[in-house]
């Protein structure tokens, strides 16, 4: 009774994990910089494009209740190809964890702890992540549940403080569609769709297996996508209206720059570190989720409980996070040039789509059964 045999997430927990996950690093780094003033529009289009992805993923997981995408891959494509793809996913997730981690380290060095070596920050943060991963999925769900209200509160507080200090200038958003649809569409596919929208179906692929009623997964995913996008749009509108589109594009951490401009009531002059720490909660959760997705994949491949991997794999993530780019500029270039096309698209869209088609063909004769199951 001390440790339940099967871990379970409640639907609310899954929802909160997905929303904090989407906000986690998207609040820190700018989203949709290529769409300039219409970044919010790009986000809406991205979200709409994300809906079929979520539907596709939840349809597949509903066919095999209680199974993650990893076991479905292995069941459908056979042991060899399945395992190969699972390892691909593991590497992808761990790389994303490392990528987010690098964002965070850079932010810490820029804003709060300028003299602390990146290695120390990486080691301490990843140790905490390892502990969270060791405690398991339920812990992540519950931590998201606890931290989500604060993150929401903080977003609202920033908006209110900006309003109070009179920095918001909505004219910065105009004209809408000044450059036409073309740059927006180019930005959405694949950049915005890959990050942050496409990350939602990614976690749904694994975590949906843990909710009690799999048939509700689709609803949860849609709701989380909607809420997360809404909150992101608020933050983007805030960034653009305070910093202008150019300022936002130039800033490494736009929301931090927004916070820097806030000064109200003489007392709250520098709330910037506070902003950093609240963002840190989101980032911590995001890295934990990526890492746990990764070690779950490893569990599927080598059949060793994922808790055993938590510390070793976390150390790899910390290592990769610092080593993978020579400088922050290099890091951003890799993030914009490599990630969307060569990483996000295959793992978020192509592989699930192929799997979806295979499953669709496989389950056509028993269509009636599937219908009953839904």
């Amino acid at each position, binding site marked *: 009774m001390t440790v339940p045999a099967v871990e379970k997430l409640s639907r609310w927990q899954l929802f909160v994990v997905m929303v904090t996950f989407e906000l986690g690093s998207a609040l820190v780094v700018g989203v949709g910089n290529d769409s300039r003033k219409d970044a919010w529009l790009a986000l809406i289009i991205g979200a709409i494009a994300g809906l079929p992805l979520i539907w596709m993923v939840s349809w597949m997981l509903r066919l095999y209740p209680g199974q993650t995408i990893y076991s479905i891959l292995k069941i459908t494509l056979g042991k060899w190809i399945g395992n190969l793809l699972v390892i691909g996913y593991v590497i992808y997730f761990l790389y994303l964890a490392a990528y987010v981690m690098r964002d965070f380290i850079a932010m810490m060095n820029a804003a709060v702890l300028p003299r602390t070596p990146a290695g120390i920050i990486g080691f301490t943060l990843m140790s905490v992540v390892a502990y969270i991963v060791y405690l398991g999925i339920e812990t992540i769900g519950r931590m998201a549940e606890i931290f989500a209200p604060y993150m929401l509160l903080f977003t609202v507080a920033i908006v209110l403080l900006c309003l109070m200090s009179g920095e918001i200038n909505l004219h910065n958003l105009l004209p809408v569609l000044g450059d036409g649809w073309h740059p927006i569409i180019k930005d959405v596919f694949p950049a915005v769709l890959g990050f942050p929208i496409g990350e939602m179906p990614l976690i749904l692929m694994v975590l949906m297996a843990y909710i009690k009623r799999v048939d509700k997964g689709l609803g949860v995913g849609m709701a989380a996508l909607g809420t997360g996008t809404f909150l992101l749009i608020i933050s983007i509108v805030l960034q653009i209206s305070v910093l202008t589109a150019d300022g936002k594009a130039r800033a490494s951490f736009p929301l931090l720059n927004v916070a820097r401009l806030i000064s109200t009531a003489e007392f709250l002059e520098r709330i910037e570190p506070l902003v950093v720490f609240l963002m840190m909660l989101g980032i911590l959760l995001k890295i934990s989720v990526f890492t746990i997705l990764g070690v779950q994949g490893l569990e599927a491949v*080598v059949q060793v409980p994922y808790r055993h991997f938590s510390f*070793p794999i*976390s150390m*790899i993530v910390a290592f990769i996070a610092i*080593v993978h780019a020579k400088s922050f500029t290099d890091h951003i270039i890799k993030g914009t040039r490599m990630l969307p096309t060569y990483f996000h698209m295959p793992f978020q869209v192509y592989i699930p789509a192929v799997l979806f088609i295979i499953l669709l063909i496989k389950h056509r004769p028993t269509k009636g059964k599937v219908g009953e199951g839904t």
Partner: protein
Amino acid sequence: MVTATYACIFIMMFLMIIIVDMFVAQDSFMTSFKELMAGRQKLLAYIGYGLLASLISDIGIARRKRANAASQEEGASK
């Protein structure tokens, strides 16, 4: 098993970031490797920690397995 997996994942990820760097910077393998690791030898301590942790995990798993087997044998003999 944990150690082996750990080593595999580490090698694969390390190769991956070097290949990514080769693509982006249009460098050769060795140049990328040297540039990425420049001044970062201390970070290999992480890999040491990870290795240690995975070895401990492996020993733990093996011991538990043996204990389980022993208790099962005992149960069977009774």
